[in-house]
């Protein structure tokens, strides 16, 4: 048959740049062999990357859709596929398919709103796509606050971009924090949920959360205590996936499939789902 048409059959992607962000996170730039973007996506969507013989895994696309040249993936070393990718060099081919999942509602719900992004660790990866999208269409959105925390200064993802670009944008406020005091760090020290409480945001914002489950849990509680309604808060989930299209049956939480109905959920939607994520 050789028609090569099935959602499970991937395209070839070439790694054209590898940026070392932190000791365990690298950002990979991926294009097709003819130098184009593999496909268009919306902020918050994901792609399946694979290394033949090693495995396939879902990663959030960290570059903004407004970047028309390439896609970027910030990947933390934690399993077989990621470990392999971390040793990959520029020019290495991998396979890529997507885009999967639903995006953040950047064009309807978010439009005209003040936005509050809260991320922890590698949780900034999916948010960077939205943040840069919103910065690109700056006039469509109100004030933007970004709270980002990590274990240490060295573990802060996209540090250079944050300091040199984000912080200088009009109407964008960046609040960084690290878990423990460190030499050469004069910023805030403390966990993200506490920092959010200290900062005490107005409830006229739409919040987007991403990070380790424990951070999400306490930040969510903090925001609710501040008077945020759960319909104002968005987050993204991650579970084991194989197909990416809601058929292989393992990433469901209740009747929802994270790969297809997620990964972006509004927090009040999550309340409707059983506690299994």
């Amino acid at each position, binding site marked *: *048959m050789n028609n090569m048409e099935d959602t*499970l059959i*991937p395209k070839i992607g070439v790694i054209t740049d590898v940026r070392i962000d932190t000791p365990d996170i690298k950002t990979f730039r991926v294009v097709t062999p003819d130098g184009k973007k593999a496909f268009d996506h919306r902020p918050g969507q994901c792609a399946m990357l694979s290394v*033949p013989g090693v495995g396939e895994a879902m990663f959030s696309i960290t570059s903004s859709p407004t970047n028309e040249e390439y896609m970027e993936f910030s990947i933390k070393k934690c399993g077989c596929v990621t470990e392999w990718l971390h040793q990959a060099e520029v020019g290495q081919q991998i396979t890529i398919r997507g885009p999967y999942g639903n995006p953040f509602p950047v064009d309807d719900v978010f439009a005209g709103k003040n936005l509050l992004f809260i991320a922890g660790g590698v949780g900034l990866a999916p948010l960077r796509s939205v943040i840069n999208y919103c910065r690109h269409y700056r006039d469509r959105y109100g004030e933007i606050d970004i709270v980002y925390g990590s274990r240490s200064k060295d573990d802060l993802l996209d540090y250079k971009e944050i300091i040199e670009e984000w912080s200088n944008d009009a109407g964008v406020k960046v609040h960084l924090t690290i878990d423990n005091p460190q030499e050469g760090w004069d910023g805030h020290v403390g966990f993200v949920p506490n920092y959010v409480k200290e900062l005490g945001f107005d409830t006229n914002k739409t919040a987007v959360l991403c990070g380790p489950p424990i951070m999400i849990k306490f930040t969510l509680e903090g925001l609710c205590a501040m008077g945020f309604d759960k319909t104002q808060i968005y987050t993204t989930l991650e579970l084991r996936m194989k197909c990416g299209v809601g*058929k*292989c049956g393992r990433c469901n939480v209740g009747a929802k499939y994270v790969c297809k109905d997620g990964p972006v959920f509004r927090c009040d939607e999550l309340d409707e789902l*059983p506690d*299994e*994520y």
Partner: protein
Amino acid sequence: MRKCSLDSINSVFAEISKAASLYLPVDGTDGAATYTKWEEGLTWSNALNTVKSPKDFFFPQTEDLMEFKTSGKNIEVIDTRSEMEDFVVFGVRACDVKSFEVLDRVFIKEPVDSYYASKRQHGTIVAVACGRPAETCFCQTFGINPAEPAGDVSIWKTETEVFFRANTEKGEALMSKLSGLTEECGEETVNAQKEKIAAIMNKLPLKDLTTDGFGGGKTKELFDAPEWDELSQACLGCGTCTFVCPTCQCYDIKDFNTGNGVIRYRCWDSCMYSEFTKMAHGNNRLTQKERFRQRFMHKLVYYPENNDGLFSCVGCGRCLSKCPISMNIVKVMKKIGGKASE
């Protein structure tokens, strides 16, 4: 409606085999029936059903998806599929026919799974009415009538004759090939058999089993039911129920390095297995109770929620007879559903 004598059924098989591969239940050396490719000398089994369901024809236990050839940093993707040929699955029971509808809703929903779809397209299903349902049958719970099996052709088998009725274009095409071997007939004998089956259905021990208390939107109500503990306590975590089930459709995608390439294939997976949801950074279903609950919630709540109320169980009874510890969907439905409707 057409008929032929049971004695001449082998010539019908021979005729079908001329144009397409024919698969039908044949008794194995262990006494259990298995779908086998028909050839001269094989006889159609009298068994009520096969241990392994016919979902294998459309969603095989293992199936190569593609192959990768790597050289240096480069990768080549090869679609290894060959042209699909027509085939006929003969002697499928009403419950299993219904299971194809359940699978269709998963695989032929956008984005269409072309591996599955092309097999569905090339397969013709000849379904047979159940003259002697077993005590483990509960298809009527899901609105299935074993006397009126769907499929491309429906057949009824009596002691001496086999009656045919084409239901679809594919079925008509198949029957037209058999016109010389079958003769036109009335429906009296078949109607009599239908009545007999209806009478037996009324005597089945599980005839009163209902789906009350289940369906879409019941997640909150049922998820934290205390009964899950008791129901799942004996579960061994094997995959028997999922692998004999005609509607279980979870799969895994894996790579096999052959030494001169990588074959990416998919194979059935089971939500009962401990590493089903295991990721690099953790597992969201750590206990057998959670895995057990997932299987039944999926069949009775999640699936109907996403598919207009259709349940992902067809009452074939395979899990009832094959579970090593005799825990099954009927016991779950009685325990949990019974409670919800009280």
